[in-house]
């Protein structure tokens, strides 16, 4: 079930992003490039190449972000990226699930994880939609302060995570 959803989400994500790119006038080759890379990605997944989904996430998030910058439909970019993100999570989960024995009830573990993932991503979608409708306007100085705070916050988070991993 997990592997099936992983492949389905990946394919859906690529299709949505491809559709978004194809709708942009003049830069349609990027969309076809994504379609061509999909079988490569699936082949690497089948061969259990370790960094496949990491690469797919970075590439496709990049494609979504770049597409938005070029004027891609937000809904397509957002939905595509969400599907790829779900596939990325399921890839990691499938590796962990492989260690479960029959006594652990892998089916139950799978269901619990899918429910959790749906809740978290659903919450993300709700917050995104809310942010779409709720608008704040900031002065330029506040925007700079926010950017610096974000920069410092994320940097601190990355540092903390690296020391925790060590």
């Amino acid at each position, binding site marked *: 079930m997990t592997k099936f959803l992983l492949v389905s989400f990946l394919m859906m994500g690529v299709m949505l992003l491809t559709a978004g790119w194809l709708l942009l006038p003049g830069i349609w080759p990027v969309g076809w490039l994504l379609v061509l890379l999909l079988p490569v990605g699936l082949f690497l997944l089948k061969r259990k190449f370790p960094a496949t989904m*990491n690469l797919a996430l970075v590439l496709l998030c990049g494609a979504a972000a770049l597409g938005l910058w070029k004027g891609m439909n937000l809904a397509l970019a957002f939905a595509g990226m*969400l599907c790829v993100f779900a596939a990325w999570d399921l890839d990691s989960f499938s590796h*962990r699930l492989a260690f479960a*024995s029959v006594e*652990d009830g892998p089916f139950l573990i799978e269901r619990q*994880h899918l429910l*959790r993932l749906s809740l978290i991503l659903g919450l993300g979608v709700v917050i995104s939609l809310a942010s779409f409708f709720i608008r704040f306007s900031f002065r330029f100085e506040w925007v700079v302060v926010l950017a610096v705070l974000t920069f410092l916050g994320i940097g601190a988070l*990355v540092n903390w*995570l690296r020391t925790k991993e060590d």
Partner: protein
Amino acid sequence: MSRILLLALLLFSLLLGGLASFNAGWLELAIPLAVYLLAGLLFAPERLDLVVERHVSESRVAPGQPVSVELRVTNRGADLRQLLLRDSLPGFATLVEGSAQRLVSLKRGETLSWKYTFSGKRGFHIFDSLQVSASDPFGLINIRQQIPTNGQILILPLAPRVRRIAIRTRSTRVYSGIIPARQGGSGVDFFGVREYQQGDALHAVNWRVSARHAQALYANEYEQERVADVGIILDARMQVNRLGEKLSIFDESVVAAASLADAFLSSGNRVGLLVYGQFINWTLPGYGKQQRERVLQALARAMPGESQAFAGIYIPRSLFPAQSQLVFISPLLAEDVEPLVRLRAQGYSVIVVSPNPVRFEAAALPASESVQQAARILSLRRRVTLQRLRHAGVQVVDWDVTHSFEQVVESALSRPPAFMRAIGAGAAK
């Protein structure tokens, strides 16, 4: 790159890029990532505080006998949502029942007990730790630990029973046994005639010889039978034992060594074992059941290995008493002939038991014309090598491993070879 680092960098890039380019879409993309990351951080495990107890059903078993390992894991710390427990299964073991790894959630104070069963052909393994890994539900933050445990398992090699192995060494030990000692005394085989001494049994009187000498009586003398020193040398060099990527004939050599050691020790001989491979593993010579146990344990631990220092055969003379019996167990290389002949020249009686690697490998490969051709050529080369050894006075047993070891050895070694019998007869005269 770890997942959480990748996620954080992606999030950072989207947020920074969105703020820098005033693109709200990028910030929208970042929101689900941020929620996911925060959820992972919120439910991340803090630290592991687990107590592990292990119980192994047996510490020493015969090959193929099942061994059960029972583990009890108690969580003394905070609740753990995703706890991965991995026990190291020995490389030589095959899982029979249960699983050596579990993926569970364990609340504070809860205890998990589980059991798995495995079996194996031969080997030694110490269960020194249990690998534990706890993570948040999304696998972003992992805390790993190796919790020390105790327990070990020794699977002794198979030792097929061989009834009798006839050897004839130039020197023997003091204790009585079954090896002709080239000395007169009490025994079974006729050795010579000497003057009658008071106390000799009347049936020992040789009346024919006595009739030719009017002054004295003569009695028969028989050949004493004693025990001898036997050194078993097991060739554990990788280049000799490994045939192709996954095929190895070493286990067959171990079976031969175990069987021969058992046979020699049962006859009362003093047996030592030398495993020659990555390093020299020497089991001091001894007698009886204790020595048998030591030898079998050494064979259970023996593994083929590579070493530049031990690429060719060099057996230190100090390890084996002069004129003792050496049994060399090896598939053999052509270059091994010289050192073995040198041992023979130094006064040792040498027997070579050689599991046939050509037939072994050919049986594992698909039957084709090229394989058969190659097997024929290699068999011829091997025959030349064995002939060179035989001409030097080394007794050679070419063991086709598709046949049972007991059958082959009993037909080849139940009587000393003709030239040894002739030497023995000459010594008696």
